[in-house]
């Protein structure tokens, strides 16, 4: 492949300059061209580059298809399972790569070298050289694969060269006044842009699908009713027992922990964030604002693991020593309160910065109107600015809530690992995110409900935060329309 790309690029660049030069010559003769010289250049470039690239990829996959079907239909081996077939395929491919590397020691233009040396001396010398070091399993299959591979490489290179040259010739001949090369070039550009946006969307869809399929796997092994409505979270990692029994995998204690900690975080961060936003946007002097706002936004850039350490090492022990133990309420340093407070600190800049933007978006004419009627500044804030900004502020709070629910590191470090339904904020509780981490780390068997439940938890979390985000965006958008 790589030899082809090098050659391909050379011909493409050549086509670019020739087409451009030809277009510019036409222009000098006072012909009015539909496309600009640069468009013609790119037309030549793309006309050579894209077909040869597509051809290379196509032949590559056709080759792989032949190798795979060769392995599958091999009479010497009867595959007991799909996994066994995959293993053989893996081995053969590794050997092929080893031998190819032996033939061509240098990477640059390697396929060219491979073809030349194959034509001169065949594959035996390289095969022997590799065999002297290691034994090659399924030798016949490897030889077959190797030959197919080299054939594919030859086809790619020969066809690639022919097509590149043909396309170059064709595009140079196309250069004329009336042909709309601009449209073609722009179509390629638009396609590239569209593809980029599709990648983000498709990735999200892919994540959801993989979550969904693993959740379905989980649902087949474990009662979904127990998962959704069970009040006990008690996974058993002891192997040897009958699978699926022994473990209670109810989401409710985790959901409760998640919501409880998020509630503490929001109860702490929303008033403080909102008040700081009001102060910054309405009362603070320009100088204070110009210092305070960047500092506040700096807080938003601190990695959450640092907050987690803060919860684990500072806030948790502080609460225990100054509050929990002296009052005889327990001896936990992991607690809902510690994790909630630290998460609240994390959310303050988030709430404050969003609310600040929203309050600033309230038109100055409304403030003037209120002042003009003799309202004081605080009356204006209370009666005009907050009501006008309220939908936006609610949206900001919902966004903060969805961050709190999805937050992981702070709760893993600060809230403990005990899943329980309790009202006491000084006890440790586990959240959905913390349990996902728990279930997937450590040495566990993948195809067991105890592991797969992580995906079900992830899907639940995804659904909750998705609903919150959609609601928040809906509210924020509705509010924006009001002043336009």
């Amino acid at each position, binding site marked *: 492949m790589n030899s082809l790309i090098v050659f391909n690029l050379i011909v493409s660049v050549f086509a670019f300059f020739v087409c451009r030069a030809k277009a510019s010559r036409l222009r000098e003769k006072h012909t009015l061209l539909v496309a600009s010289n640069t468009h013609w250049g790119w037309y030549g470039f793309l006309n050579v580059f894209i077909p040869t690239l597509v051809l290379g990829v196509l032949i590559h996959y056709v080759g792989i298809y032949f190798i795979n079907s060769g392995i599958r239909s091999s009479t010497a081996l009867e595959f007991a399972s799909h996994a066994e077939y995959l293993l053989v395929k893996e081995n053969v491919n590794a050997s092929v790569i080893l031998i190819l590397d032996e033939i061509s020691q240098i990477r640059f233009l390697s396929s060219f070298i491979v073809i030349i040396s194959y034509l001169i001396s065949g594959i035996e010398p390289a095969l022997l050289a590799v065999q002297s070091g290691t034994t090659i399993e399924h030798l016949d299959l490897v030889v077959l694969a190797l030959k197919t591979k080299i054939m594919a490489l030859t086809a790619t290179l020969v066809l690639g060269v022919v097509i590149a040259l043909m396309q170059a010739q064709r595009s140079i001949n196309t250069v004329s006044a009336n042909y709309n090369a601009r449209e073609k070039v722009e179509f390629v550009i638009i396609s590239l842009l569209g593809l980029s946006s599709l990648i983000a969307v498709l990735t999200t869809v892919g994540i959801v699908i993989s979550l969904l399929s693993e959740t379905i796997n989980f649902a087949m092994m474990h009662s979904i009713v127990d998962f959704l409505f069970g009040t006990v979270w008690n996974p058993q990692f002891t192997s040897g027992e009958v699978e699926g029994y022994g473990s209670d995998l109810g989401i409710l204690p985790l959901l409760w922990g998640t919501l409880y900690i998020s509630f503490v975080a929001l109860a702490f961060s929303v008033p403080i964030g909102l008040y700081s936003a009001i102060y910054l946007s309405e009362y603070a002097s*320009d100088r204070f604002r110009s210092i305070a706002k960047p500092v506040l936004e700096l807080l938003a850039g601190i990695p959450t693991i640092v907050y987690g350490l803060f919860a684990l090492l500072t806030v948790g022990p502080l609460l225990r020593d100054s509050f929990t133990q002296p009052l005889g309420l327990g001896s936990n340093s992991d607690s809902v309160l510690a994790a909630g407070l630290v998460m609240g600190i994390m959310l303050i800049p988030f709430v404050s910065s969003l609310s600040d933007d929203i309050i600033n978006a309230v*038109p100055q*004419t*409304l*403030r*003037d*109107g*209120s*002042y*003009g*009627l*003799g*309202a*004081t500044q605080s*009356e204006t804030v209370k*009666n*005009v600015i907050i*009501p*006008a900004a309220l939908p936006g502020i609610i949206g900001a709070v919902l966004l903060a809530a969805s961050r709190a629910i999805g937050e992981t590191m702070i709760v893993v470090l600060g809230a403990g690992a005990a899943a329980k339904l309790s009202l006491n904020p000084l006890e440790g509780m586990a959240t959905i995110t913390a349990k996902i981490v728990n279930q997937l780390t450590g040495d566990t068997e993948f195809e067991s409900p105890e592991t797969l439940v992580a995906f079900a938890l992830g899907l639940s979390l995804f659904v909750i935060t998705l609903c919150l985000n959609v609601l928040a965006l809906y509210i924020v958008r509705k509010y924006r329309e*009001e002043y336009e």
Partner: protein
Amino acid sequence: MLDTTVDNMIEEKPKIIARDVKVVYGDKEALRDVSLDVMDKTVTAFIGPSGCGKSTFLRCFNRMNDTIANCRVSGSLIYDGQEISAHDPVTLRARIGMVFQKPNPFPKSIYDNVAYGPRIHGLSKNKADLDGIVEKALRRGALWDEVKDRLHETGTGLSGGQQQRLCIARAIATEPEVLLMDEPCSALDPIATAQIEELINELKQSYSVVIVTHSMQQAARVSQKTAFFHLGNLVEYNDTGDIFTKPSDPRTESYITGRIG
């Protein structure tokens, strides 16, 4: 004969007396030594090209320039026998109402918009009292008939002209003595403009109205006194008829005939 003299004497009593008013934004002088008297029960128009200082001067009357950080006002502005700078801005703005260029109803119901001023100044004793104030203000704002059945709908849902009349009703609900209008029709179509102008004509029976306008025709239609501003100076201040028929300053003449501006 005697009647007209008495009438004149009442009219001639100035409501606001401005002497050598000067406004500076940062280091830029926006208004230079302006002296004029605003009469009671009269519509006074401020005209002049953009940036001539007419809006700035208007905003001195109810101390709206206070809300701009680097703005300084000097000279003397006397309202009700006292320097405006010595008045409490809150009560001052209740007595000198203002209507802005762009209709700016609060995102509240029509009722709450009008009741805003009376509520913050505690002008009503009970709900029935407040209802009365709101109705009276909306009637004087020539909006009552259009909105009486939907007082609790949001004020931002009204048309532009209705919104501006709502803002006028909101401003007169606090029973001000002076009403300042900063280009109140610049965002409105001709029909809504005509309605507002008619309203201004009504309002001058009880208030002193000061209106800043870009439209000379509007000044000629609604005002009795006109002040022409140019580059931060008060060029000419006289009866509206005189300004438009026999201006004494060549700059005024150039402006009203359309040669500058």
